């Protein structure tokens, strides 16, 4: 049985379809990333699956039940981290975790949650005195304190510094290794690349891709040529075939092309003429971010 099954989900606000006939499944133990630009319908999807909203059409089954009408026993099997931090600032970290833990039939020990979230040193600190990143980790701690079978993570690492983000990834990997199913939204493609077994891409309320990350990377997206450029390198007279595909970004060229040979030929010729050293030249398949951006551009040409 799937942990999550969405069939023809639709959610309308007046005349606007925030979700339009979206269907997908998440198998038990799977990690699925829900991607899409702002306003694509990610949070609406999550809120329907979490039981906060009822769909205008279609059906949602989560752990075998309709989340809109599910009871306490179902909620004890589901953990979630909302998009924005929602904590009482007056409580200490240990008090907040302990109060939430008391609701579940088999909560994790407090020390374990503090260790998993790297907050052991802040157990006695009031939540309101923590940094934004630390508060986010308390959110994650509350999400996992009840040992959920299914964990909804809505942008769980937003606001975390790179080291804390990587720690969070390790924790999520540990949870999934223990069998927890995870559905997460994120704007960090690196996060989806590392954590997700599958990615779902939403644009304007429609599901436009449901694939494994490597499948998405291979799916018709152009090969990427990357080359760092020394400071002051003139790029104004790049060959038209290259200039059209070039993306001068922080002192480098990122060329997405379906004709690698022609692009390299043009690039090498230009480099020879201008005596530019192409040290660090990389040619390879698109990253998940490249593939995602190409897909979004294809679906919503005005985006970018």
């Amino acid at each position, binding site marked *: 049985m799937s942990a999550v099954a969405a069939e023809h989900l639709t959610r309308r606000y007046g005349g606007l379809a925030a979700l339009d006939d979206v269907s997908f499944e998440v198998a038990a133990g799977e990690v699925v990333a829900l991607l899409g630009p702002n306003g694509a319908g990610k949070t609406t999807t999550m809120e329907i699956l*979490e*039981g*906060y909203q009822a769909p205008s059409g279609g059906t949602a089954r989560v752990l075998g039940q309709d989340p809109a009408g599910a009871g*306490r*026993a179902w*909620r*004890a099997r*589901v953990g*979630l981290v*909302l998009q*924005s*931090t*929602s*904590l*009482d600032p*007056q*409580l200490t970290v240990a*008090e907040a975790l302990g*109060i*939430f833990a*008391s*609701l*579940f*039939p*088999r909560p*994790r*020990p407090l020390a*374990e949650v503090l*260790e*998993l979230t790297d907050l052991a040193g802040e157990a006695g600190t009031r939540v309101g005195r923590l940094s934004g990143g630390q508060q986010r980790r308390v959110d994650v701690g*509350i999400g*996992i304190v*009840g*040992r959920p079978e299914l964990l909804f993570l809505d942008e769980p690492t937003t606001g975390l510094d790179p080291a804390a983000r990587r720690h969070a990834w*390790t*924790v999520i990997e*540990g*949870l999934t290794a*223990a069998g*927890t199913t995870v559905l997460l939204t994120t704007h960090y493609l690196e996060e989806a690349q590392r954590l997700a077994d599958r990615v779902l891409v939403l644009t304007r309320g429609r599901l436009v891709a449901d694939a494994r990350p490597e499948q998405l990377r291979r799916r018709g997206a152009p090969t990427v040529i990357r080359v760092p450029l020394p400071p002051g390198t003139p790029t104004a007279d790049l060959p038209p075939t290259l200039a059209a595909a070039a993306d001068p970004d922080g002192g480098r060229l990122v060329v997405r092309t379906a004709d690698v040979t022609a692009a390299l030929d043009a690039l090498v010729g230009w480099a020879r003429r201008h005596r530019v050293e192409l040290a660090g030249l990389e040619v390879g398949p698109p990253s998940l971010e490249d593939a995602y951006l190409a897909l979004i551009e294809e679906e919503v040409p005005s985006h970018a």
Partner: protein
Amino acid sequence: MPSPSRPPVPARLPGPWPTLAVQVRYQLLLLGRNPNALVAGVLLPVLLLSLTATRGGRVAVAALAGRVVLGVTLIAYLTHAVGLVTAREAGVLKRWRATPLPRWGYLAGRLCATVAVALASGAVTVLVGMLAYHARVGPGAALGLLAALGFGALAWAAVGTAVSAFIPSAPAAQPLLTLSYFPVMLLSGVLGTVGGVPGWLTGLVGWLPGRPTVDAVTHALAATGATPSVPVHDLAVLAAWAAAALLVSVRVFRWAPAAA
């Protein structure tokens, strides 16, 4: 690398009493760390007592009753309802809805804690009135006072719970609730009789929970002997307000922020 522990055998959800006990403790922690509760429930009534004292340093029972009611209702209505709106708009209530906590659990915990802190506020004000300002309160007042303050705090907290649903945002909570509170309490005589009030307005205010709270506490404090004096009629009115407001709350209470 930290490794999440494997789940043990399934267990049952916590029962209603342990759930309520944790929620009451949680809300008491929040109230205990809320400076508004201390200011509204203790400092303001005691300050007003000092301003009311006669040249001989005495405070009449009627004045003491008004200050007690002021502190109790400020906690039960204003502090409670502002806290609810703030928690709702910050997403705290939405977060609770995603847990196995039953809906009644959160509200019951909040109401119980609010009533308990309101009672403590009333007790402090009465003690200060007796010890510092020689207010004559007999031992027979205790039971009636407990009942009057308990019913009054519950009625006001229930009304605050219902009203909170109609407050659109956290910044609007304090001004809107203050606007709905002070006219009612002033006309109810919490700071003494107000002259020049039209009869129809006095009659209208008599139906609101302010006047019965003031009357019940005044009645209870007036028991100078050892015999308890329980203001049954006022308590019945307050109980009706509490029941009606709780019923309305069940229908209109909102868990999600307005923007959600």
